[in-house]
């Protein structure tokens, strides 16, 4: 088998898989499956990341009272197969939620698998131990560069050191399903990729998720930090190379990347999970799909103080259960549409009805 025919075969396999996935997506539109339920526990945060999707500003805004979350957990357990649902807690910094451990212990006792995102700075040895006791399976901690860069992006001196200590405390505690580091790369820190890699090589983490800065939340105020086309190519080549080397470096869930990159930089093919697998309960009780999606009338599906979560999931969410591409002429005409479907819901411009991040002409071309 020659190299070029092998490459053709690989592209063929991917095309077949993505065709299957396209059919499957249509089925999911009619029969969605709740697989990830996010709780935005608080908007409070002890950092001020410039790229924060929630625009947390240290505001003293907590999420729902614990009793309300417990009520939702009971209801979801009653109406869904929770062996297939992962509870994902996030913020703000979720550890700042006053009743954090009481709530997570409750979820654990009900049988929920749960994971969280955190800036890591509050994870002392004692907290790591409590997290294990409360049944936390997985955690993703943000490290956005080498020490100086990370602290600058987070507007807090000593943040990097504290976060690295937090990760080490989790590693020392042990017993978690996966400890992941997430890094958001931008035009400034992309030059630190290799050094960051070397740094994480020495740590006993399970994976490193490397994603690009997206034009959402507070990052909109820093257009000069967005990745250039060259930066994007550098990022994807880097991830692919490490994965060829058997290292667990991965891109995130976003964006259709084209035949040559799909399933090379992550384990799965692009399928925006918003509203077909994923739902979120925001700090004010609003219900939506992914938390990074712009919050506005058409994306908010209800509020848990007015309706049951189950009814909202079953009866609404229509906006997420049809192809985004239908709303935009370029997407409709695009040859990649059948696999891309208009891209990620979180990077859709709901005023102009167009995709803000399209990898066409960056990672692939169409004829």
């Amino acid at each position: 088998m020659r190299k070029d025919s092998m490459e053709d075969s690989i592209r063929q396999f991917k095309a077949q898989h993505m065709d299957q996935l396209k059919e499957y997506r249509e089925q999911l539109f009619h029969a969605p499956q709740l697989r990830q339920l996010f709780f935005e526990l608080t908007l409070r945060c002890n950092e001020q990341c410039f790229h924060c999707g929630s625009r947390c500003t240290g505001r003293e805004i907590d999420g729902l009272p614990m009793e309300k979350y417990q009520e939702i957990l009971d209801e979801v357990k009653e109406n869904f197969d929770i062996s297939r649902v992962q509870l994902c807690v996030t913020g703000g910094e979720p550890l700042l939620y006053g009743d954090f451990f009481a709530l997570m212990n409750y979820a654990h006792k009900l049988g929920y698998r749960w994971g969280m995102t955190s800036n890591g700075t509050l994870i002392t040895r004692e907290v790591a131990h409590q997290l294990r006791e409360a049944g936390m399976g997985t955690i993703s901690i943000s490290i956005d560069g080498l020490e100086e860069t990370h602290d600058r992006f987070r507007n807090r001196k000593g943040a990097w050191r504290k976060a690295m200590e937090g990760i080490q405390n989790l590693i020392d505690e042990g017993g978690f399903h996966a400890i992941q580091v997430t890094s958001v790369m931008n035009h400034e820190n992309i030059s630190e990729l290799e050094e960051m890699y070397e740094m994480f090589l020495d740590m006993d983490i399970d994976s490193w998720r490397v994603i690009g800065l997206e034009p959402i939340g507070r990052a909109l105020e820093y257009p000069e930090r967005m990745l250039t086309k060259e930066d994007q190519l550098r990022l994807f080549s880097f991830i692919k190379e490490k994965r060829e080397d058997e290292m667990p470096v991965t891109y995130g869930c976003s964006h259709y990347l084209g035949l040559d990159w799909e399933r090379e930089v992550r384990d799965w093919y692009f399928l925006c999970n918003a509203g077909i697998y994923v739902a979120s309960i925001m700090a004010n009780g609003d219900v939506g799909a992914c938390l990074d999606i712009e919050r506005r009338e058409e994306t908010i599906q209800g509020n848990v103080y007015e309706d049951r979560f189950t009814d909202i999931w079953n009866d609404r969410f229509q906006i997420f259960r049809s192809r985004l591409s239908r709303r935009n002429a370029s997407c409709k005409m695009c040859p990649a549409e059948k696999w891309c479907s208009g891209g990620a819901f979180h990077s859709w411009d709901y005023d102009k009805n167009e995709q803000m991040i399209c990898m066409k002409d960056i990672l692939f071309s169409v004829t």
Partner: protein
Amino acid sequence: MKKAGRKLAFGAAVVTAALNLTACNNRNAAVYGPPESGKPETDLSTEAESVKPEAESGTQTEQRVETELITETEAALTEFDPDDNLNNDVYGPPEDFEMKNNMIPAVYGPPEDMQ
């Protein structure tokens, strides 16, 4: 961060699978005959040529090996389950999620005991 013990990039995994199949088939001398001495097993571009036929004509055997390789690899790789196409990285896979169920044996090489 530890090595996964397998290629995580799909293309590289497929190439490795094909190489492993070639190596296995070539080592089974009773079926395909021994590899030609001095030819690296890992040279994908020459894998069919590295098979030395015993009974059949060279061209026939090469074609048979190549067809079987493609068919085997293809069969394994087309076993894609869209229901398992999950983003497990952020929050980890569900605890009952078996990575091995999401693996395609041929992609990640033959069983270790295969000679």
